[in-house]
């Protein structure tokens, strides 16, 4: 496999959310997540429309945001999309 798509186009947060949060094996019926009343897929599509560009390295999700609320995250991503 070439991996060309990953290196050239990278992975957007939107596509990530769409797959990781809304797809995959559902082993049990008790998954509970908080998305603060925001439709992730709708938001995701809006971001794609406004910001199809590759997420710059400095804007990529950090891994130390365990205390960050999903709502804050979504607002932050939305704001950054508006800059493009």
């Amino acid at each position, binding site marked *: *496999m070439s991996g060309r798509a990953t290196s050239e186009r990278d992975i957007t947060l939107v596509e990530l959310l769409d797959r990781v949060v809304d797809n995959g094996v559902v082993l049990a019926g008790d998954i509970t997540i908080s998305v603060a009343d925001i439709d992730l897929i709708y938001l995701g599509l809006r971001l794609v429309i406004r910001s199809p560009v590759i997420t710059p390295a400095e804007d990529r999700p950090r891994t130390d945001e365990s205390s960050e609320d999903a709502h804050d995250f979504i607002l932050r991503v939305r704001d950054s999309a508006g800059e493009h």
Partner: protein
Amino acid sequence: MTSYYVYAIQPANIEVPRDLYGFHPDALAKLCWRDLAAVVAPHFETDTLAPTPGRVQRHHEVVKRLSELGPVLPVRFGTILADCGTLSEALKRHAETLHADLERLAGKYEYGITVLWGDYLAGSDGSAGEPIEPQGENGRAYMLQRLGEYQREQRIKEIAESIKSEVESSLEPVAEEIKLQAMMRDDVPLRGSFLVPAEWSDAFETEFERLHENYKPLRMLLTGPWPPYSFVSEDYTSLPAHKVR
């Protein structure tokens, strides 16, 4: 009693790298039922789990790393099982489907394509690109305006369906399974996921580039290769999914 957050399912004979961490402080481990293994981390939080970028990214990185070692089924974000017994029971209950999915999806990856209108409508034949401006205030003008809007919407739908057909027929030879949705939003004529065997990746990407070139005013976005998130069986999803708060 310890709860477990589940990242993925894989064959039990594949070892989990010792240096592999998710978003939990403990290294990942596998809990097995016969020849199936759930890749897990002990989970002690009792609060609702929010899909922060850090957590979502780490979840994905775990699944991606595991997919480089062998067949893997991504488990949906937020899956927490109460204890070891509950997890074993879940593996046992879904064993047949899990086995079938591991076999079907082994060595295959997912690509995502999102198509945006860009300047395509304005540049195609002009008939669908411009919104209808009000022509006057009387009833006839109003009805004509509504008729014009309806005809424009129909034309846009037809164009979206034709793009869908073209994308499907072009990529069908280089993808094993395709999921497409046309016009899920007015501004997104097409979204799709494609299951592609690893050895077909180059051909798939080449065909995508050709397609993109042919539809140049359209904006076509390709992501991947991803682990096959969108192609696990729907048998699992007969269960209620997220309780979104």
